[in-house]
């Protein structure tokens, strides 16, 4: 077995009355693409925010690249990349400037910076658009730029929160291919969230289905089907089966509003 890059044990988070994440545990191995799949409001973003040091967990432990997150948050920030569900580039700067700012924040030296930005622009196919303001980019281009920003410093883990939400099918496919390349060519460890079953199945080596803050099932797509007792089930069946496990009533008005707002911005 390869080394464990992310270890989450018994993590919980409450917002007032809302138990957003409860007793979640899982491990992600080096080089793996791990998917958190679940409906709106399942607690996926909250989990990712705790893993990226943005939110403090109420209970439980998180370890990334062998370091305890609670003890060394700054060290952990040096070796992770994060693309939030919302828009994280500045529309009033060019693609190049957006990359340069983050290269500086990650502490890359001048020479390294220039080489790496060129590398990223090639990888994302944004060379031609590099000097254009990002507000003129399409949704797919923005997502690729955001992912590019997050991998400038060769992170040990890349966290992607709903990387294709609000994208049209063509742009979505472009982003999928980009993620696949990162995984296969760069052997990057990726943890992504999604509420599209086919996305989880085609990108992820293993999937954890989240429902109401809990993990309802965990395994490869094939294993999930098997656990359900129906190897011929479609991913839709699997999703519905497990997402309903904790009597989920969807994410409610607030989360619907949130994800639509994001979708609108990216579209």
């Amino acid at each position, binding site marked *: 077995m390869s080394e464990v890059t992310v270890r989450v044990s018994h993590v919980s988070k409450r917002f007032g009355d809302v138990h957003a994440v409860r007793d979640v545990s899982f491990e992600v191995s080096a080089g793996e693409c791990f998917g958190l799949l679940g409906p709106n409001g399942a607690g996926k973003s909250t989990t990712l925010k705790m893993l990226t040091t943005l*939110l403090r967990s109420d209970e439980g432990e998180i370890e990334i690249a062998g370091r305890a997150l609670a003890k060394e948050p700054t060290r952990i920030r040096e070796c992770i990349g994060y693309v939030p569900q919302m828009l994280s580039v*500045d529309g009033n700067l060019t693609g190049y400037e957006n990359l340069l700012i983050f290269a500086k*924040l990650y502490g890359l030296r001048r020479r390294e910076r220039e080489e790496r930005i060129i590398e990223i622009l090639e990888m994302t196919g944004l060379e031609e658009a590099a000097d254009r303001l990002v507000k003129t980019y399409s949704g797919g281009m923005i997502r690729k730029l955001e992912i590019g920003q997050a991998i400038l410093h060769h992170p040990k883990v890349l966290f992607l929160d709903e990387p294709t939400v609000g994208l049209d099918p063509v742009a979505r496919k472009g982003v999928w291919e980009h993620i696949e390349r990162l995984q296969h060519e760069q052997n990057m460890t990726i943890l992504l969230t999604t509420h599209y079953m086919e996305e989880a199945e085609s990108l992820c080596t293993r999937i954890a289905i989240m429902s109401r803050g809990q993990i309802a099932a965990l395994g490869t797509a094939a294993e999930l089907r098997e656990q359900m007792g129906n190897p011929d089930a479609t991913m839709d069946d699997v999703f519905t089966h497990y997402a309903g496990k904790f009597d989920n009533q969807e994410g409610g008005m607030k989360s619907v509003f949130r994800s639509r707002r994001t979708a609108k911005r990216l579209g």
Partner: protein
Amino acid sequence: MSSGVAEPQNAWAKGRSRVWLYFSHVFTILEMEVWKLRKDPSELIMRGIQPALWLLVFGQAFSRFRVLPSGNVSYKAFLTPGILAQSVTFISIFYGISIIWERDMGLLQKVATTPIRKSALALGKMLSASVRSLGQAIIIILLALILGIHMNFGVGAVAGVLLMVILGGAFFSGLSMVIAAIVRTRERMMGIGQLITMPLFFSSNALYPMSVMPVWLKVIATINPMSYLVDGLRGLLIATPDAHFGLDVLVLVAAGLVVLGLNTVLYPRILSG
């Protein structure tokens, strides 16, 4: 992995002091703001209109009436530093809105997952607001020159003015960020900003000297940080005999450090939507 793989930890350890990195992060946040302003300076210019009106209309009228004692200088010269301070304060007190905007967008969260220190991010944002205020200072100084308002435009005085503007802008935008972290929404931030700007302005020495104030107002004016900004600017631009430049700088730096500290503590609050 691709070529040039740098173990981030090594690069960090390699002889670069934390202090250097801290200030390079502050500078990076500042740089981002400057790049944006350079591309679209229209906002800066628009914001120059209001102080221009104050100087032209209010300044003109009151120097005609001679109702306010402005010592041995014209009322317009007395008023100009006050209007400069007003414009720095007003532009900065709403800065929290753009922080909330960046939070709502997701940009702030992404920055917060890089190795930047919380206080470096807060300081960078405070100084970014100062850059906007500097634009105001330049517009108002040019305007005063055009209007033929007689003031001290020596290199030393102007340098001092720019320093005061940076300090004032950093403090008031820092204050605004504290409010933003507490109220969390743009609408509430807007409301509070509007609620405090006028009292802040009228309870300072921007329009009239402290000497004509009733005692209760004098007390308020003394604890109002805007008064120190006005006093410093006035001392530099029209050489008022009772200005205390050293004290003014000290008060603004101390107040700035307090809000920087508060922002560092409150920072998780602004991040969580």
